[in-house]
């Protein structure tokens, strides 16, 4: 069956998080999902807009939503957690506040319905991928991993409706299904330093340092993420991290989409892991043929 979904990659997936885009595309292709880009999309404004300019912080995401609506999309996949957060928040606020919606409509010259289903990468995986991995999986992700969710994917919980605010499990479940052993750790939703990457690298070193160290201390062999900002802070900022914690730690940081691609046996080029700063030296085990399972029918008493 051919499946189709709207797609908003966002700016970083066209640049520094290119491999995330590549891995999502690979994943979609492997499962026959067509990703249809939101026509003529613009930047969501990210942190900068809502820090400096409330009007822009609504108008920029609203135009994206309007373009998607106009193209007749129902679902859109937004792999970047930051974009996902902005788009979801704006849709939520405009959905419940009519006068604000009217004001924004006037600025962007559109008529928003605010009824899109905005999916983050994990929801996308649950809806389109998880149930169909089965035989496609060639390699077992036989590693101990730390699933790191970050802030933007889960908060505010009442709007984004993530499974468990303090100790989410959705990503852990995906990884477990690939054969991974996920660690139970307390920093799943701690902040990595987010948008301070360039302007206050020192802070990012401290915050991301705590996260990487905690994962390493608990024996994780890889950190699994779902956000380009988390990725760039934990991966590209590894020198700042190592400086902050005074220790060398070489565990790689892998997007959840890359992890699935890897288990499907995709090449480095297809997964994009060759683009990481911290090399992904992970050998996955060949998946053994599943023993024939005989389903016994037990009578209900």
């Amino acid at each position: 069956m051919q499946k189709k979904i709207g797609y908003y990659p966002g700016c970083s997936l066209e640049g520094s998080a290119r491999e995330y885009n590549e891995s999502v595309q690979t994943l979609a292709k492997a499962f026959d999902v067509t990703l249809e880009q939101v026509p003529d999309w613009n930047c969501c404004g990210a942190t900068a807009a809502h820090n400096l300019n409330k009007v822009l912080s609504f108008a920029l995401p609203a135009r994206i939503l309007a373009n998607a609506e106009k193209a007749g999309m129902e679902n859109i996949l937004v792999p970047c957690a930051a974009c996902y957060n902005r788009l979801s928040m704006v849709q939520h606020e405009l959905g419940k506040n009519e006068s604000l919606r009217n004001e924004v409509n006037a600025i962007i010259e559109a008529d928003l319905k605010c009824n899109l289903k905005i999916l983050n990468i994990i929801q996308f995986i649950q809806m389109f991928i998880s149930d169909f991995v089965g035989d496609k999986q060639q390699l077992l992700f036989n590693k101990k991993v730390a699933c790191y969710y970050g802030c933007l994917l889960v908060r505010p919980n009442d709007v984004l409706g993530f499974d468990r605010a303090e100790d989410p499990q959705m990503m852990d479940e995906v990884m477990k299904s690939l054969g991974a052993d996920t660690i139970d750790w307390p920093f799943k939703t701690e902040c990595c330093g987010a948008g301070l990457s360039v302007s206050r690298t020192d802070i990012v070193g401290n915050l991301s340092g705590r996260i990487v160290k905690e994962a390493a201390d608990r024996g994780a062999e890889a950190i699994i993420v779902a956000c380009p900002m988390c990725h760039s802070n934990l991966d590209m900022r590894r020198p700042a991290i190592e400086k902050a914690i005074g220790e060398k730690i070489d565990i790689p940081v892998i997007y959840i989409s890359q992890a699935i691609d890897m288990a499907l046996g995709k090449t480095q080029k297809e997964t994009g892991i060759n683009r990481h700063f911290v090399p992904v030296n992970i050998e996955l085990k060949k998946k053994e043929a599943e023993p024939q399972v005989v389903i016994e029918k037990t009578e209900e008493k």
Partner: protein
Amino acid sequence: MARIGVFICHCGENISATVDCEKVAKVASEFPGVAVSVDYKYMCSDPGQNLVKEAIIEHKLTGVVVSACSPRMHEPTFRNACAEAGLNPFLCEMANIREHCSWVHEKGDATTQKAIDIVRTLVEKVKRNEALAPIYVPISKTAVVIGGGVAGIQAALDIADAGHKVVMVEREPSIGGHMSQLSETFPTLDCSQCILTPRMVDVARHPNITLYTYAEIESVDGSIGNFNVKIRLKSKSLDEKVCTGCGACIQKCPVKKIPSEFEQGLGMRTAIYVPFPQAVPNKPVIDRKNCTYYIKGKCKVCEIVCPTKAIRFDQEDSFVEVQAGALLLATGFDVLKTSAFPEYGYGKYKDVIDGLQFERLASASGPTKGEIRRPSDGQIPKKIVFIACAGSRDPAKGREYCSKICCMYTAKHAMLYKHKVHEGTPYIFYMDIRATGKMYEEFVRRAIEEDEVKYIRGRVSQVYEKNGKLIVRGVDTLLMGQPVEIEADMVVLATAGIANQGSEELAQKLHVSYDKHKFFSEAHPKLKPVETNTAGIFLAGACQSTKDIPETVAAASGAAAKVVGLFSNDMLKRDPLIAIVKKSPPPVYSSCTGCFMCIQVCPYQAIDKEEIKDRNGNIIKTISHINPGLCQGCGTCVAFCKSKSIDILGYNHDQVYAEVSALLNE
């Protein structure tokens, strides 16, 4: 000719601030049939009541309308005043221009007009009132006390000592409630069991008290003076009369790993068990959910070892019915579990416990024999962090109210810990210290100054486990929000006190009101603290809101006094606001057609059939008859009677039509 007196009250400024009372009085004086109309600042005061009495005599009034507050509080006041002046009390009505008018509207002409309209309706009604006489019903002088915690125990003993019968219904296999789980009690640090167990034994031995444990209320009907209470005795799988309480069965029961409710999951019990050694009654019950025999059909070890053959596997639940004059609710409270706290680990860390669990650790009869040892590995903790207000004062994820007891028991816990583990350090994260009882502040000061408990003002943001320690991330708000991180060995959450399980269901069975947190509501927060809105049902202790023991016991004795007061009369005087089947002269006798619809709909089974016979004893007609002792005046039958043959005294068709028409054609 009607001669009605109208008395408009200002209620201080409660009414006069928004309603022009003088104008209301003036307009009312012109209503047809009104003989006198005056306003006054406090009508319920002595001079106010005198105004009414004098007017009755002077103007030979045939009816009185007091236009003031809700009839709930002062209708009896004014009816008594009327009676003193020689007017039948049922010829006095209240027009509520406070709750229904002044409190809910802004000042203005429309508000005054509404007050006038309300007065007009009551004037029209009272013109049609008839003199009525109260009815008297006998009182069953037995009280049913529901819940056998310290509240129930105190109340039961007080009532029984006053010479009345008490039936106590306790859900668990033993009475005692939470107090029996406590180690030592603030502010005196006396041993909880030492002061409670003798009282528990008194309950069991008292000739006036019948104790049903492992029992629950099945249904309640009737009303004050004459409740009919049906009690379900859950099967204990045991013949209590034969069992000697030797405990052989408990020793031999192979199912030994059931988390004990009494030990808050820190200890284990068997499938046949008594909750704790001092239990009253000290006889076991079989927990059928966990018993191998009930699950798999095999075992019966207890039956084999029982020397007196007391085990009854086929015993079924049974029921007893009790006629009671009063009910007393004392079903207590519960505490939030640690699993309610995402940021403290969703209950997954073994060494993050709640206050009741700490009580069991500190108790000499507890799973560690009173040594403070942490649940995970039995080590003695060197640092304990106590977190106050866990789930209290927390509208976001817990309860918005202050649980009131946790400040004190947390101070006590820290103190007990320090007394038992001298080299240990207790920390308490708190927001405010609420220590307002007698000797309470002194108790807290002692904890801080003598026992060196470290109080840190701030809430804890997160607790997580690392290398066998619990990392507590808090803050010191008295140091400009400085972060505080403590590596603790154990964390005790003073979790919010909450309404007990099943309280909502029970409240609905008894028709008593409860608040949004499912605690039972008192009839008046200040003046009727141990009464419910349902006459004859009283409440005491933590089922009303979390309370400490002194407060619980005071409330219990208060409620008991109310019951004893009620029982000091043989007959109960009741307002005659009940339904009657209208009669008429022969040959019709009554418009009742004998469809007996009313019998089916009456929720109180107050209606039966009456045969009208001629002189020779031949039945002429069968009509409905309403038993005045049982009728509650709910009016359901009135609504169902197609031939309009039933009226509620004091609210008959005429009166109600007059009220409505007065509003329509002003």
